[in-house]
């Protein structure tokens, strides 16, 4: 490939990703600094739009509630691996985050007296676990859609500059005053195949999750973890990568998500014989137990032969006792999914569901100012991360439903505020020599590779092995199998070939590049999962069935050193809530 055309841009703040977190940051940054948002998708196509259930905030609009209870639930839900200072910020700033959105125009559902309505959601309780509480603010079952639209609308209002369908493929770092700092990102313009270097005083990563390492997932095709992968390849650490959330209610076989709101509104999980099995696993809050527990309970029902269907490989979500008006008013979209994709009528039939890969608790480690960390406590000046790609860590070992939409708003906003603050005083970091060399090399290698392996085949094999070996139940053996497979796939990845050699809209090329990131992240996940020899939150080891606070009350910190993974550990910040057994 001839060297592509390269364009240069300078912005005070460069934000990578136009999902909820990226745009929330842009709304803070835009009015105060020259800001660009770079996104591989048109902003409203980001996966924040798929979020359904709601956004947690202790508004106490419908019943007594406060941020302290919310903090407790978050910490407990995260199986005590949550950094409690961060969780306090999350819970405290939640109210403002929701009010911000409302003031920006978000059409929340309303109470009879015109305030923002709230509903129940898994793991959110009153008075430290006494009973479920209505804490989730929502807009029907398209809260994420409304957040994404509202944020984009406000970006339009502010005249934020977007570079859409630009794939960021590299982060350039340079050493100034003896400190390594971010200087620019390199992006590939899908429409033309040309490269763009965006130099920024501060750079914010908000690139979302990487659910596509799994086969059955609620995540979009585009959630390939590029941002997290780029950070990884720079030698910066990734935190808590073993903690991946499997959402209990994905449409069986498809992975499309049916929000927890379905259970919040009274939906009940049943096994083949119609038994409400959650009564056995979480007697107090039953179907509204945290996701990891419900997902495991479901997988266990199936493993023990109580699954429904011809292959006994799923359980049933029963909404038939809910009045159709309630379903229509509160859960219109997800019942529509059941109808469209499975041909099931939720008014009268239970819906086949099974856990689906949903959310990465881990990611790029940051402090509460959204500054990226290069080790347990040193920040990389000028580099920020927020949203699902980041790990603050407010979700610990298991995220509570509705806490992620909150996370992207609270920490997205913080990333915006602090990145501007930094850009106000900082200078541009010089772009290193040969800025685009690495990206050109990467793209050329893929384009010129004349092997026989196909990207889609490798990706499928990766996803299959991850579903089989690194899902709800894990063992040393299964994780070893996954790792061996990844090594094999990585080798075969050297021999891929693509068919599209053109410049315009070459998605063939980009899928190959994305696969590279998927392989990297899958490996880190499997590796850290293997090293965490305990069970906690979303990470369940059949060979180590209990939580081991003695050894593992720590965050994992994985570093890429050459071609191997180096693992470190980072203490958990505990303020008010000493670890206790997690029972519901």
């Amino acid at each position: 490939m001839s060297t592509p055309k390269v364009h240069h841009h300078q912005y005070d703040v460069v934000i990578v990703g136009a999902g909820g977190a990226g745009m929330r940051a842009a709304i803070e940054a835009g009015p105060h600094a020259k800001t660009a948002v770079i996104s591989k998708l048109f902003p409203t196509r980001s996966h924040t739009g798929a979020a359904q259930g709601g956004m947690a905030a202790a508004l106490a609009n419908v019943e007594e509630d406060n941020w302290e209870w919310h903090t407790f639930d978050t910490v407990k839900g995260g199986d005590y691996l949550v950094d409690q200072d961060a969780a306090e910020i999350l819970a405290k700033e939640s109210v403002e985050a929701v009010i911000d959105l409302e003031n920006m125009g978000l059409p929340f559902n309303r109470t009879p007296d015109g305030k923002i309505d709230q509903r129940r959601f898994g793991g959110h309780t009153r008075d430290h676990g006494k009973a479920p509480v209505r804490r989730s603010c929502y807009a029907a079952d398209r809260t994420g859609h409304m957040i994404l639209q509202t944020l984009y609308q406000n970006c339009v209002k502010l005249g934020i500059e977007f570079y859409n369908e630009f794939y960021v493929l590299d982060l350039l770092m340079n050493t100034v005053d003896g400190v390594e700092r971010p200087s620019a990102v390199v992006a590939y313009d899908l429409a033309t195949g040309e490269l763009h270097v965006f130099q920024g005083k501060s750079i914010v990563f908000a690139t979302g999750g990487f659910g596509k390492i799994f086969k059955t997932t609620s995540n979009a095709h585009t959630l390939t973890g590029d941002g997290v992968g780029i950070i990884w390849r720079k030698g910066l650490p990734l935190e808590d990568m073993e903690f991946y959330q499997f959402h209990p209610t994905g449409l069986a076989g498809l992975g499309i998500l049916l929000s927890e709101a379905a259970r919040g509104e009274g939906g009940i999980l049943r096994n083949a014989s119609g038994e409400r099995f959650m009564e056995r696993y979480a007697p107090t809050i039953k179907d509204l137990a945290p996701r990891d527990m419900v997902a495991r309970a479901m997988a266990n029902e199936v493993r023990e032969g109580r699954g429904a269907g011809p292959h006994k490989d799923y359980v049933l979500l029963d909404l038939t006792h809910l009045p159709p008006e309630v379903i229509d008013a509160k859960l219109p979209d997800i019942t529509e999914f059941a109808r469209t994709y499975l041909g099931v009528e939720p008014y009268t039939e239970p819906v086949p569901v099974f856990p689906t890969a949903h959310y990465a608790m881990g990611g790029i480690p940051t402090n509460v100012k959204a500054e990226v960390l290069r080790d347990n406590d040193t920040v990389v000046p000028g580099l920020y991360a927020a949203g699902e790609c980041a790990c603050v860590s407010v979700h610990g070992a298991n995220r509570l439903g509705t806490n992620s939409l909150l996370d992207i708003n609270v920490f997205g906003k913080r990333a915006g505020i602090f990145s501007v603050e930094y850009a106000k005083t900082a200078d541009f970091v010089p772009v290193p020599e040969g800025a685009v060399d690495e990206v050109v090399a990467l793209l050329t290698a893929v384009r010129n590779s004349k092997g026989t392996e196909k990207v889609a085949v490798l990706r499928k094999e990766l996803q299959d092995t991850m579903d089989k070996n690194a899902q709800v139940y894990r063992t040393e053996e299964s994780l070893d199998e996954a790792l061996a497979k990844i090594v094999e796939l990585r080798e075969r990845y050297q021999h891929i070939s693509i068919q599209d050699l053109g410049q315009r809209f070459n998605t063939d090329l980009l899928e190959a590049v994305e696969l590279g990131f998927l392989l990297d992240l899958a490996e880190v996940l499997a590796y850290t999962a293997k090293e965490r020899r305990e069970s906690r939150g979303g990470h369940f080891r059949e060979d180590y069935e209990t939580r081991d606070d003695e050894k593992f009350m720590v965050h994992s910190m994985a570093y890429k050193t050459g071609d191997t993974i180096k693992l470190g550990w980072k203490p958990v910040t505990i303020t008010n809530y000493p670890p206790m057994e997690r029972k519901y």
Partner: protein
Amino acid sequence: MSAEATTPVIGEVPSFAVTLMVRRYNPEVDSEPKWQDYDLTMYGTDRVLDALHKIKWEVDGSLSFRRSCAHGVCGSDAMRINGRNRLACKTLIKDLDLSQPIYVEPIKGLEVEKDLIVDMNPFYQAYRDIKPFLIASDKPEKERIQSAADRERFDDTTKCILCAACTTSCPVFWTDGQYFGPAAIVNAHRFIFDSRDEAAEVRLDILNDKEGVWRCRTTFNCTEACPRGIQVTRAIAEVKQAVLRGRA
């Protein structure tokens, strides 16, 4: 409750043969678009998007189309399937007439960039032109109060995912591409009828343009195409009425 009796059988989905006719065009090599046929074996739960992926992943990697969420919420993959605008990810193959090939082509009225990818910029521009954001001067301490009924007033039009299925199904939009189009009007409607918004008049004035609401000829293609089930034509009618009254 007897779960077994009411459980639909999934997992054992029947497979069938289909032919997909895809409108291919790569301006780097082709002088004009052409139809290309692909014979595939698909399954009962497969959608047209799955078929396109199958082609891309197994037959011809250069086939280009946009997609992301794969379940009808991101609005990436509006295309013309058997002559009608739909989302590929929401169109089950088994629901189509399989005795004939399935025709897949780009949405109409926007310039084709490559295969099924069109230049969406004119569409986005029309959206931005109607000031799609809340304009309110008060600075409330907490949330603004809005009755459930007032909230309900514009519920339908908040569902829009900007997929462009409506605008590019509109015969008026096809003619010269200058018409604001149903999607822009839908998004204007979402604010015009929001009791918290203070700029209804501004938007009504914008849409009282030569290329505004009056160009709509009530052909209902938009309503039929909308994957979110938005009553687009009704929304347009409500905006027309509001322009006539001079307020929401």
